[in-house]
């Protein structure tokens, strides 16, 4: 067992723990914080089903962003859809045997990597080219895009330029899951890729990446517009009535 394998095995155990526990904690905070007033941005759905559809359109198609900025919408939709396909494609490195749906999306998953990188490049360009977006960008906003871009680049490198021993990589991750460690191949693009992915997992619960769970908890999007029909009252507000 190489020293590097041990380091990366521990790194991924830690990153997974921080990501899941951190995210679970943040989601719990969002969920248990009361929303004392009805504040859906109207016109809003008047039924629960309507709200589910509204959130689905928001998450799947970025409906509000589409209204807000067509360029940002194109780039971010490209990035997120690309990322989704890439992530789904990566499941093949964790499961054995690889199920049929994953085999089928394999060809798309590869090109999704390009879409992802192109989308990120577009989003980053806006941070330099549009004076308003330049003004609101903190160093962390630039670094987050750099991080994601490098993850995309290093991944594409392995696919198209300098192949890594993917069978070994799969054995490594299967080994992590089954607590039966196997050696990680010592390839530069792979090490860069894995380091950055672990970094992303670790900072996720502490960063603006919280927008992912956040959108589901946004009262302007997830509330039913029925304040006259149904009395809405938070527990702390109820206490004022006693």
């Amino acid at each position, binding site marked *: 067992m190489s020293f590097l394998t041990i380091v990366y095995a521990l790194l991924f155990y830690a990153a997974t723990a921080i990501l899941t526990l951190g995210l679970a904690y943040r989601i719990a905070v*969002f969920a248990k914080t009361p929303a004392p007033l009805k*504040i859906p941005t109207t*016109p809003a*759905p008047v039924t629960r089903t309507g709200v589910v559809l509204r959130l689905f359109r928001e998450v799947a198609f970025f409906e*509000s962003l589409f209204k807000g*900025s067509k360029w940002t919408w194109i780039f971010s939709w490209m990035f997120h859809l690309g990322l989704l396909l890439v992530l789904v494609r990566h499941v093949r490195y964790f499961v054995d045997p690889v199920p049929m749906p994953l085999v089928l999306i394999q060809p798309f998953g590869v090109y999704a990597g390009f879409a992802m990188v192109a989308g990120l490049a577009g989003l980053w360009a*806006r941070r330099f080219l549009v004076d308003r977006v330049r003004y609101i960008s903190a160093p962390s906003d630039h670094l987050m895009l750099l991080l994601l871009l490098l993850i995309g680049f290093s991944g594409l490198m392995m696919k198209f330029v300098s192949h890594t021993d993917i069978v070994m990589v799969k054995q490594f991750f299967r080994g992590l899951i089954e607590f039966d460690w196997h050696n990680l191949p010592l390839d530069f693009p792979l090490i860069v890729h894995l380091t950055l992915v672990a970094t992303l997992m670790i900072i996720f619960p502490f960063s603006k990446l919280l927008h992912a769970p956040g959108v589901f908890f946004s009262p302007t999007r997830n509330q039913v517009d029925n304040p006259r029909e149904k009395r809405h009252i938070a527990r*702390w*507000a109820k206490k004022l009535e006693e």
Partner: protein
Amino acid sequence: MAKADFEVPELKEYIEVPEIVEGTMAHSKPFYAAPQHNTDLGFPGELVDNWQEKALEKMDDLRKRYRSFQVYLDSCVKCGACTDKCHYFLGTSDPKNMPVARQDLLRKVYRRYFTLPGKYFPNLVGAVDLTKDVLDEWYSYYHQCSQCRRCSVFCPYGIDTAEISMAAREIMDSVGVGQKYCNEIIAKVFKIGNNLGLPGPALADTLEGLEEDVFDDTGVAVKYPLDKKGVDILLITPSADFFAEPHVDGLIGYGKVFHEAGVSWTLSSKASEAANFGMFIGSYENMRRVSLRIREAALELGVKRIVFGECGHAWRVAYSFLNTLAGPFDFLDPNYPVPQHICEFTYDLLQKNALTLDKSENDDMTLTFHDSCNVARATRMGDKPGGQFEIPRAVIKAVCNNYVDMHHETIGEKTFCCGGGGGLLTDDLMEVRVKGAMPRMTALNNVIQDEGVTHMAAICAICKSQFTKVLPYYGMDMDQIVSVHQLVSNAIQLTRKTEPETPGEVEGAEAASETDTDAEE
């Protein structure tokens, strides 16, 4: 054209997104509240010694009580979709008037004290200490937000800057930094019953005067009752409706509609104000206290329904919050929504052909309609989403022959605020009010030039007062802004010669209440 000691934006063909110019509005700030105005509302009179600690405590308290505040502080990715959506940014070019930048004034303090990256790497994530300069900046820029929610329409996470502005104002109030306009007014509501400090006897006089005017004008004794017990409807309307122009013409209209509907109604001296400035300062407790007057008045007067007059933010508190703050209203007639908007009331009568109207009475005008921000994006009318756009337009079109909408990107859910909402309708903020009106003025100017529009109708007391003041800065006439029920008032033909005393006693009233079932059921 009104004189200004600042540059009034030039109206162009399109609403252009300006290049940012830092600090153009850094000097803008409203008058501070006197200690008395703060203490009346339960806040410290002046800036407390340990204000920093207290402000952070309040921020912590609010993020635990308001999911919106916590989620919105955490979720912004700085995508920039909101950056060109705020009328104050479009009118001033000041980047801190971009919604995300306005939120960041507070978010960067939140990050510094409540998040790991902000504690250990403040420069990396743009976190800053809460200093007096930061507090001053909050005071300036959180009073350049009218809480109109336009940014929230375009945000991929629905982040509503209004929620952040309200929280910021509440934090400032909690350390003794209050705004004179809002806090003084809320205290007046508690002491006297309305924003204008109009006491009951003065109100009675005013209403008597209105009755005389309407009688002289129409020969019909339309009543404008005050504190009348046992009637059907309690009308809650903004106090500007009692004497300001064009508001009062709207009030005259409500009275005529009630008269023709044959329902009995009353105003209340205790709840002689629809507006609830508690929302502007983000204070649930004050907002609740203001709302409870309405519940008490309804109980004391023994009414069956509550109807609200034309008022924007008031309709938000009424429609969205009243049931929460002062409910449940199980003592009212369950066949009607609580509360109901006067436009819904009139619209229902129109659906039943219960009003005799002569549209030609408004032929001297070509109308357009300004969707008031809080009605558009924080409320509904009728039972379908978007009724808040359709119902007022249906009312206008039923009483006017000439109607044109402004550009579709400037109405409906994308409507621009008048520039005076959210506690900014005060002379010490005239510059930001005039500049913030630029997008609406541009859209209005276009329909004036291209479609021959002569007047703009609105259903909000703040919009009406704001436009009365601001139109002249843009070379237009102050009386080009009208009330929707002023148009109804012009067109309505009074066919009922007697006023129903109490429900059921007068033959006409009974007949009317039979036909007056509601579409909302």
